């Protein structure tokens, strides 16, 4: 004990000397008997408390991201099918788009807690708010795809005329354009928040979401029996992009991407990426056109894309709890 006390006094003297000489003390002090006392964390933060509030999005939101994406891209596929004269795919694409729009609206409204709030969202249109753009896009897309479908079915039933034909084209083009916005605005919605992992991936999330939407739309059309080269090509490209994105996230190894690589959400991200990426890709490439393998690939991709949506939202929640993720963006670590 005596030596300990002697050491403590000597150390204090040295510190006092340093303080007198330089006006401040750089070194650590002593660890007196009775320690440890609370010490500051190695990286500065307020006791590791989060700086940001976590996103409070409910389970409906990622599902809406997914369904909205499928619906939007299906409308695009329908338009291109029309241009290339594939009547079957046109009709199926319009139906999928319409069904997606019908599912999307309740999901988006349900996550607001009180349904009437959706009307408040349509009270203003604000370009600076991705959410406002999205609410209007969903409204516009639903109307356009519904109109296109009605025109198409009326013409199929034999009541067609020139006006309806033109109207169908206009509605299809509107549906395809608003569908593209519907499938992509959700990624902008994440990118322009303060959540570090979303904000720092604002250029990658659109790729992830659109590739997921593209592949899932193709997969849904495959479920409906369109085991044609068109859907196969779409599926291969989409899963190749998903694979590439997963490789980028893993190899880049950024601190801010840690929620995508570590912990439960990290493994969820990897599971989603593996299913939608390499698993689907290999199934499609090596099994050729065997229908069982294509159905399996479609199922894998849809599940993978769905998991990926939930994983990205979950990663945002994890990221918001980590003060260092935010600080490092604003003051890059040396």
């Amino acid at each position, binding site marked *: 004990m005596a030596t300990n006390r002697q050491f403590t006094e000597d150390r204090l003297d040295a510190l006092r000397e340093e303080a007198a000489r330089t006006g401040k003390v750089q070194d650590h002090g002593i660890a007196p008997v009775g320690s440890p006392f609370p010490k500051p964390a190695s990286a500065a933060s307020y006791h590791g408390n989060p700086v940001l509030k976590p996103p409070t999005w409910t389970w409906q939101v990622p599902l809406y991201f997914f369904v909205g994406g499928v619906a939007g891209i299906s409308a695009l596929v329908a338009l291109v099918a029309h*241009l290339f004269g594939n009547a079957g795919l046109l009709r199926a694409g319009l139906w999928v788009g319409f069904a997606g729009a019908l599912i999307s609206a309740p999901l988006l409204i349900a996550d607001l807690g009180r349904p009437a709030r959706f009307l408040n969202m349509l009270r203003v249109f604000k370009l600076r708010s991705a959410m406002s753009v999205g609410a209007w896009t969903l409204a516009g897309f639903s109307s356009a795809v519904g109109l296109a479908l009605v025109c198409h079915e009326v013409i199929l039933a034999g009541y067609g005329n020139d006006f309806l034909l033109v109207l169908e084209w206009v509605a299809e083009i509107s549906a395809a354009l608003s569908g*593209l916005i519907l499938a*992509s605005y959700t990624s902008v919605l994440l*990118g*322009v928040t*303060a959540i570090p992992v979303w904000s720092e991936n*604002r250029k990658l999330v659109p790729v992830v979401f659109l590739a997921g939407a*593209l592949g899932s739309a193709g997969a849904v059309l495959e479920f409906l029996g369109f085991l044609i080269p068109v859907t196969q*090509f779409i599926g291969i490209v989409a899963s190749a992009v998903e694979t590439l994105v997963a490789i980028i996230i893993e190899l880049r190894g950024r601190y801010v991407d840690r929620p995508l690589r570590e912990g439960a959400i990290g493994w969820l991200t990897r599971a989603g990426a593996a299913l939608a990426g390499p698993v689907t890709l290999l199934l499609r490439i090596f099994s050729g056109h065997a229908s069982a393998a294509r159905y399996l690939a479609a199922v894998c991709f849809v599940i993978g894309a769905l998991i990926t949506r939930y994983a990205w939202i979950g990663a945002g929640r994890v990221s918001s709890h980590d003060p260092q993720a*935010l600080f490092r963006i604003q003051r890059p670590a040396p």
Partner: protein
Amino acid sequence: MPACAKACPTRSIRFGELEELRQEAHARVEELQGRGYNDAQIYDPTGSSVGGTHAIFVILGQPEAYNFPPAPEVPTIHLKSAWSAALVSALMVVLVVCLAFVL
């Protein structure tokens, strides 16, 4: 005047015109640095896109230790880059869908 500023026994919390408070803060930081607290500084992020926080803090050490973002930005300054990425991706999707029918 808010109750917290009124009741503060050490006058640590102050309320008033922002410009006057800024001058007071500068004076206080100079005083502290003169007394050897070299890491005394003002936290007042007016230079960034957030344009200030309507509150000024005189702190010792890094802002991070108080959970202040060292260089806060309004997230919507990234709208352009995020929408650009979305636009490029969307164009690629259109291209892929067209190619799927051509090939």
